[in-house]
């Protein structure tokens, strides 16, 4: 109830009606996506939305009765941000979403502090490796460790929130990551 008034969202993604909308604080995500947005263009089920851009997180369809306000979004692991809302359906690859946002953070990192400057590069490479089906469970563990490192030791909010899309997609769509992992590490003893 501390969020008063209205909020402007930029609704985009797999949704029939895209564009800028102004809604009262407390309207649910479901109302925004299905009534204002009109659902997906071809009627396939909505998988979730991403709010807050590269600093934000994903909210799965199961939590679409969450009201849109600062506290509620933070509770489910996302943020309001500047109002970006991307609708995603079953064809959306959540690992690719995390990788896309990490690329942004990596490119925008100022370079002053070590964890963000080179940690975002390492996280981007790990997400690329996972996406390409080349990563192991150890790589996923390293990715999660880097999430904690950047969140707790980065100098500014860019590094501190860069892990958000990764942690959020891991929280709600972990199976998409695990499905892509290599099951066994093969050690090739012959020379390369």
């Amino acid at each position, binding site marked *: 109830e501390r969020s008063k008034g209205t909020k402007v969202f930029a609704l985009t993604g797999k949704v029939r009606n895209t564009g800028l909308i102004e809604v009262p604080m407390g309207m649910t995500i479901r109302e925004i996506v299905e009534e204002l947005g009109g659902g997906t263009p071809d009627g396939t089920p909505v998988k979730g939305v991403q709010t807050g851009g590269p600093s934000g997180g994903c909210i799965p369809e199961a939590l679409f009765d969450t009201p849109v306000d600062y506290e509620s979004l933070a509770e489910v692991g996302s943020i309001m941000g500047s109002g970006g809302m991307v609708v995603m359906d079953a064809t959306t690859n959540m690992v690719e979403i995390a990788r896309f946002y990490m690329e942004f953070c990596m490119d925008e990192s100022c370079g002053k502090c*070590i964890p963000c400057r080179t940690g975002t590069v390492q996280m981007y490479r790990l997400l690329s490796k996972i996406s390409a089906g080349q990563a192991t469970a150890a790589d996923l563990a390293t990715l999660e460790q880097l999430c904690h490192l950047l969140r*707790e030791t*980065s100098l500014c909010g860019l590094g501190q929130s860069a892990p958000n899309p990764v942690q959020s997609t891991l929280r709600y769509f972990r199976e998409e990551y695990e499905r892509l992992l290599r099951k066994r590490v093969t050690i090739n003893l012959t020379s390369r």
Partner: protein
Amino acid sequence: MAARTLTINGTLISARSNETVLEAAREAGISIPTLCHLDGLSEVGACRLCLVEIAGSPKLQPACHTTVTEGMEVQTDTPRLKAHRRAIVELLFAERNHICAVCVASGHCELQQLAVDVGMSHVRYEYLSPDCSVDISHARFGIDHNRCVLCTRCVRACDEVEGVHTWDLAGRGTNARVITDLNVPWGEATSCTSCGKCLLACPTGAIFSRGSTVAELERDASRIATIVAARNERW
């Protein structure tokens, strides 16, 4: 200047009211790792190695840039802090091409010492192996960007102590490089006075004096603090 009493790792410490947690800890014999800090230069809090836990604050604070307060409770060596420090040093080794075996600073390098201090046995991250250049256009000095950790001690020493601001930073993120003047070769940087303070300030073998071979480069970085103290106190 009033005295302040604080607790570091459970031990009561007395400090001056304008001291940082880092200064108070070091005076009490408690070591906190640092890299971007150099006595005599301003603090930037960039390397994040000196982060400490302070009771009442959910966020980690850089000891170099946090002034002591009365009753402050500081933890410098928790498992979480140790793990983060180790990870940061590993990230540094994976970031550029730090090859001790061919480096003039081997044996007298703060990055090497950090690896020992944090217990770095191996690097878990993938080596990025970027393409970094070496600039030996200057008659007396050179810079090998493969060894640079972007601590900016050279930038601050040149700007704050020598006062000519030859060194600065260009680029963003991991592509950032320290540059001389408007990104000209060091030998063509007309603002440079060849004073060598950047050489003193550099923690690794990135800035080196030409003519030294592997493991020969030894510097006394405390000379910068001595110069600053001499000027401030008008010896």
